[in-house]
Structure formats: C-alpha cells, structure tokens
C-alpha cells in the first residue's frame, strides 16, 4: 500500500514533467496564441479583480483594527499599526493568501475546463489534427496568469493598505499622518520584489497543477469534479510548501 502510494508520486511527477515538456513548445500560430493569451488574461485576471479587491479591502481594515486593539499599551508607538498592515499585506496576505484563493477560483476552473475537454474527446480531436494540445490549451493560460498575477497582487497590496488608513481614521484608532509614518517606516522595496517573485511562482503552480489534473482526467463528469478538487488541494499544498522554502531561502 505504502509502496504503491510512493509509486503514485513518481508516476505523477513523471507525467507532469512530460506534460510540461509538451507545453513549452513553439505555438502553432503566434497570432492565435496571442489572441488566446489575451482571452486568458481576461478570464484569469480581469474577472478576478472584484473578489481580490473585496478581500484585500476587508483584510487591510481588519488587520488595522486587530493591531490597534492589541498594542493598546502606551509604550508601543501608534504608527506600528500602519507598519503592521503594510508588512502583513506585502509579505504574506497579498502574495500568498490571494493566490490560495485564486487556486480555488481559477485552478478549479482550469481543471474542469480541460478535464471536460478530455472526457468529451475534444483533446483527442486537437491531437488528431496534428495540434500539440498541451501547448495549445495550457501555454496561453500560463503566460496569461504569469503576466496578470503581479498586477492583481500589487492592487491587493495598495487596496489593503488604503483600507487600513480609512478604517483607522474612521474608528479613531490612528490618524492619517501616524499611519503614513507607519507605512513608510523602514520600507524596503526589495520586499515588494520578493513578494512579486513569490506570487509568480504560485501562479505557475496554480496553472500547471490544475491543467495537469484536468489533462489526465479519465472517465466522466464525476472524475472531472474530482480532478477539479485535486487541482485546488494540491495547488494550495504546493503553494504552502513553496512559500516556506522561498521564505527560508530569501529572508534568512
């Protein structure tokens, strides 16, 4: 049992590698590739702006109020609130938690779309025509996501920090000038760059893992559902593992 489980991991890694080898090929026609990529940017990115904005606004606001409630001791400077909102948003919430949510939204969508194409023989139809189906279906999604994720994440950072400022003032826990001091205190642009790199890795994980589970779906509608669940679960697990590794590598 344990043995077959281990083999399962190797089979998965092997098939994943093979799939990637097919994804990273020259597209059949650049014009079509470009058009598909723009479509994916819209589907993956633009259509996620709403949910990302909503979550970021609320998280920034909540972090602000939480921090204020917890440092109410007099000898911690009040600008710490702004500082904490900024650090939390930039270092973890925007680059890690937003991708986790995107894994649920975009990952499941990719897995079920490709899975449905597999079980209804649409992928076979592409292969029969002599089209590299892995390249045709997956590369535009990957390029689209790698392109648009950094924008979403920067938007999330900005909105979260802004929401903190508004709520801080509305709730009377921190004044605008103090907040400004906080969010500029010891600001290191490198940390933003670090976050964007991290997020790009997570975008890669979400698209390729979800596409993998979709592409190798076997059976019927039930299996498409399963593939979509697996895509989300394994994307999130891998995001968490990579987050730990990257933090360990870069920040220490």
């Amino acid at each position, binding site marked *: 049992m344990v043995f077959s489980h281990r083999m399962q991991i190797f089979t998965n890694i092997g098939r994943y590698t093979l799939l990637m080898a097919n994804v990273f090929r020259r597209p059949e*026609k650049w014009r079509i590739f470009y058009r598909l990529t723009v479509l994916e940017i819209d589907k993956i990115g633009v259509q996620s702006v709403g949910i990302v904005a909503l979550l970021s606004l609320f998280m920034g606001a909540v972090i602000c109020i939480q921090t204020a409630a917890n440092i109410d001791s007099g000898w911690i400077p009040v600008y710490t609130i702004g500082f904490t909102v900024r650090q939390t948003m930039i270092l973890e919430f925007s680059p890690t938690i937003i991708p986790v949510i995107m894994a649920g939204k975009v990952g499941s969508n990719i897995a079920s779309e490709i899975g449905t194409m597999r079980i209804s023989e649409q992928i*076979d139809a592409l292969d029969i025509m002599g089209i590299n189906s892995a390249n045709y279906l997956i590369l535009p999604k990957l390029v689209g996501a790698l392109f648009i994720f950094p924008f979403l994440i920067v938007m999330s950072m900005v909105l979260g920090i802004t929401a903190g400022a508004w709520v801080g003032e509305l709730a009377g826990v921190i004044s605008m000038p103090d907040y400004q001091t906080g969010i500029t205190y010891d600001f290191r642009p490198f940390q933003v760059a670090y976050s964007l790199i991290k997020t790009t890795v997570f975008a890669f994980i979400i698209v390729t893992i979800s596409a993998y589970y979709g592409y190798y779906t076997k059976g019927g509608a039930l299996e498409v559902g399963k593939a979509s669940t697996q895509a989300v679960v394994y994307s999130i697990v891998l995001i968490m593992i990579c987050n730990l590794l990257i933090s360990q590598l870069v920040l220490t």
Partner: protein
Amino acid sequence: MIAVEGVSKTFGTQKVLRNVSTVFETGKVNFIIGRSGSGKSVLTKCIVGLLEVDEGRIMFNDRNFTAMNVNERKAVRQEIGMLFQGSALFDSLTVEENVMFPLTMFSDMSKSEMLDRVNWCLKRVQLDGANKKFPAEISGGMQKRVGIARAIAMNPKYLFCDEPNSGLDPQTAIVIDNLIKEITYEFNMTTVVVSHDMNSVIEIGDRINFVFEGEIWWSGDKVDILKTTNDELNNFVYASDFMRIVREKLQ
C-alpha cells in the same frame, strides 16, 4: 489505403490487441465491428497514433506511420479527418468556428476563403444556416454533421468515424451513414467506420472486419457476413430478433 501489420497493444496485463493485421481500402467504407470492449476503439486510436503500438506497424499509402517522428506524423495527421463518438466539437466555439478551426491552424487561406470553404462544408452536410449556433444549441444529429463538416474541412484522404450513429434515432442514423458513404465515394477517401450496429454495416459497409477479443476474427463483405459460418460472428450478427427474421427471409 491503410495497412495494419501485426499490431499488438497491451495495457498493464491486459492484452487488448493481439497481432492484428488488415487492410482498409481506398474509396471504400471499411468497417471495424465487434462487441463493446473487444478493442475497436483501441485499434482505431493505434491507427491514428493517439496510442502507440507495442508491436507491428501502421502504413498510410506505403508510408510507415509508426516509424515517423512527431513532425513527420503531423503531415500525415493533416490528411486525416475524424468523427468522434460524442462529436467532440469545441463547445466554446460556434459551428462556423468549429469547422474553420483546422483551416485557421493549418492553412494560409484568407478569412473570406476560409469562410467559403466552411460554408461549402456545411452545405455538404445540409447544415447551411447554422453557422452562428453553439454546439450546445443543436441536436445530436446536427452535432454529428458538424463533426463531419469539420473532419472534411481540410480535404482529408482518410476518414475515421468512431460509432458515428450511437445515440441517434434510426432515421437520423441512416442519414449520417449515407453521408459518410457519399463523401467517401465523392472524394475517394479511405474511410474507417467503427460500429456495433448491424444496420449501418448492411446499409453502407463495403469491407467488414470483425474484432473478437483483440483479434481480427473475420473479414469480408456484407454479402458474406450474412452467410457466415463463424460462430462468434454469427452470435454478433444475429444477436437481435430483427436480424434473425432477416436470416429466415434470406434462407
């Protein structure tokens, strides 16, 4: 002409195809018949290269398809049209875009030339006017016809049909069968039809290959098949009361 020479295919411990050899002739409707699970689809997928054969080789007009690399195969693939069991239309594209798809990927035609070709193909399958509909908006029989139109868009030399009339009512099934036959004769294609429907066989079959437990058990034409003395083939052909009545009338 397509020649299958000594093809074997095993999945794990299950030997699905055992040393299969046969020939599919040009300008004829060649059938692969047999019970569910006998290996018909696997054989078809091996022929078109969706599956790799373990042993043997596939020849497309004396070109050894099995020995080709990906790029050489691509050239042959563009001479192959395939109609899938569930039609396999791209559901995010309209009827017109579906038929145009192989043209946009592989031809250098202008947009209006492509549109002309698409309209010609749709007309050939009696679907002119359905251009802007999506696959989900048309009936199963119409989907099959769009599938045929897409399969013939690139003017293929070889046409594969996997259970072309499964899920269709008998009248629509006959329309689809006859369309396949007419197109085969009109363009002198090498057509391979996978089926377990004796109606189709009698209607349009020129050459028939009966697959039993992964082997070609019997080959012949539709006159021979009604007079066969092969037990397994007899059980298959005369499985229904209807065919048994036909047999009584013939005798």
